[in-house]
């Protein structure tokens, strides 16, 4: 297996890991908050084509964003840079990666035949409305006022914690879900945020048990 490929999105350098060589259909895996493409939570899978894993900005082998303004839309830009490199790909996202996969599936239906949404860190955000108390925002700013030096390789930028409290309104999620070609939402009986429940009700979405999720995505990929 070769090492990660370097991508750039603006001034940010992103690490794209070829996890398995192969041809189409491609699969791009998007990791959970604070993790990385080589620290995926979901089990390994049988996928008929090439598999790539992207380190989002602020995570693992990718560079940290100057100024700390991490948003799901910024991470979707990271995923879009990977799609620009590898071409059309199925997505499998965990936690924040699941929400980013929804945004990409809605915005890039020409490049994303279907997306698998899996639970994981960063799935919730602040809920459908911002945290009006500002307490988490204050906590983020306290973190931001402390000097941080990049530690050992693989550490996440502490400021990616902003992705724990961004607002994810249901009508926003619904519009992206309506434009997606296919969504597979993995259920394990655990709680799911409002944006997830809304996306699951769209015409092209299906809920499946977590153990069946990969098979469902493979079926979406065809024979």
């Amino acid at each position, binding site marked *: 297996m070769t090492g990660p490929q370097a991508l750039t999105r*603006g001034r940010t350098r992103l690490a794209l890991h070829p996890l398995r060589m192969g041809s189409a259909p491609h699969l791009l895996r998007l990791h959970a908050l604070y993790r990385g493409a080589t620290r995926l939570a979901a089990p390994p899978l049988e996928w008929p084509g090439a598999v790539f894993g992207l380190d989002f900005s602020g995570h693992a082998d990718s560079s940290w964003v100057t*100024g700390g303004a991490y948003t*799901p839309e910024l991470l979707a*830009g990271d995923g*879009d840079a990977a799609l620009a490199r590898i071409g059309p790909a199925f997505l499998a996202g965990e936690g924040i990666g699941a929400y980013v996969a929804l945004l990409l599936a809605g*915005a890039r239906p020409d490049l994303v035949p279907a997306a698998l949404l899996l639970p994981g860190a960063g799935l919730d955000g602040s809920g459908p409305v911002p945290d009006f108390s500002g307490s988490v925002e204050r906590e983020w700013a306290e973190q931001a006022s402390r000097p941080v030096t990049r530690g050992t390789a693989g550490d996440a930028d502490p400021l990616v914690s902003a992705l724990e409290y961004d*607002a994810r309104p249901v009508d926003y999620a619904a519009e992206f879900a309506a434009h997606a070609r296919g969504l597979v939402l993995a259920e394990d009986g655990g709680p799911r945020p409002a944006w997830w429940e809304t996306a699951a009700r769209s015409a092209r979405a299906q809920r499946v048990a977590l153990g069946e999720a990969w098979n469902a995505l493979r079926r979406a990929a065809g024979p």
Partner: protein
Amino acid sequence: MAPLRRGGSEAGTLAAMEQPSYPGAVAPERSRDLASVGVRLRLHEWGDPQRPPVLLCHGMFDHGRGFDTLAPLLATRFRVIAIDARGHGDSGWADAYAWFADIADIANVLRSLGRPAHLVGHSKGGGQATDAATLYPHLVRQVANLDGFGPSPEGFRPPGFELDTRSLPERFADFLDRRRADEERSWRPYPRLDDLVARRQRMNPRLSEAWLRYFLFHAARPVEGGWVWKVDPLAAGGFGPFKPEWIGRGWTGLEAPLLAVIGSEPDSWGPLPESLLEERLSHVRLLERATVQGTGHFIHMERPRETADLLLGWLAA
């Protein structure tokens, strides 16, 4: 295209010679830089550093030197500090921008002052000053918001601006396309500073040509082939969920007194319809309202003397 240093080349020397003046405008007495969340912020200062501090926050696409006519009037009683927000004026550029990061910058500047300050903000800077005062009550004594109460549900409609009726995912795809192309962030140079003046005057028809020539001289830099904006092209171009009905909801936690100021004249960026403004301000506990007659959205630029008198009468020494 490499920026030319003012005074360091023929174009720079020419630019320095042409530095415009404007009645009542006073350049900052001091400027300093402050590192905040990985970005270098430029701060401009007027007045005795021993006096109580007033921090000024500008609006979108503006910069701290836009207070060159207001600040010297406030400096008769205060130490006045104006921020160039990240991505604006002479501050550094970030990789990405978000409201919460600007608020963190304001908090860091407030901390650097060593004592609680008054906050005054215009437009976007007014909304951010109000949010910063809400989040950091121990750092802020009073806050004055100059027409920074957000857009109406229909959004801002400046002259020549067409409403984008595409779906969110289509607009986001467009946003992603532009990000793919922005590896080298730069503006197209305008041949002359007056071209920038004409461009901005179309957006803000209430601002005089003489003021815009002064204001935009500090908003742009000379490069080979003309002048470019200093502001980061990405600074205004974020994407994410936003609802006008969210504005004001957080201000229930505002402990500092708020002076909400609007202009008397309709303008493309404000003021809001009164019923909408009232609803947003209904969350504020200690509220005073004021209107500066004869001004539109750019209250302090249009009538600096009247704005200063209002603030000097309201801000506690």
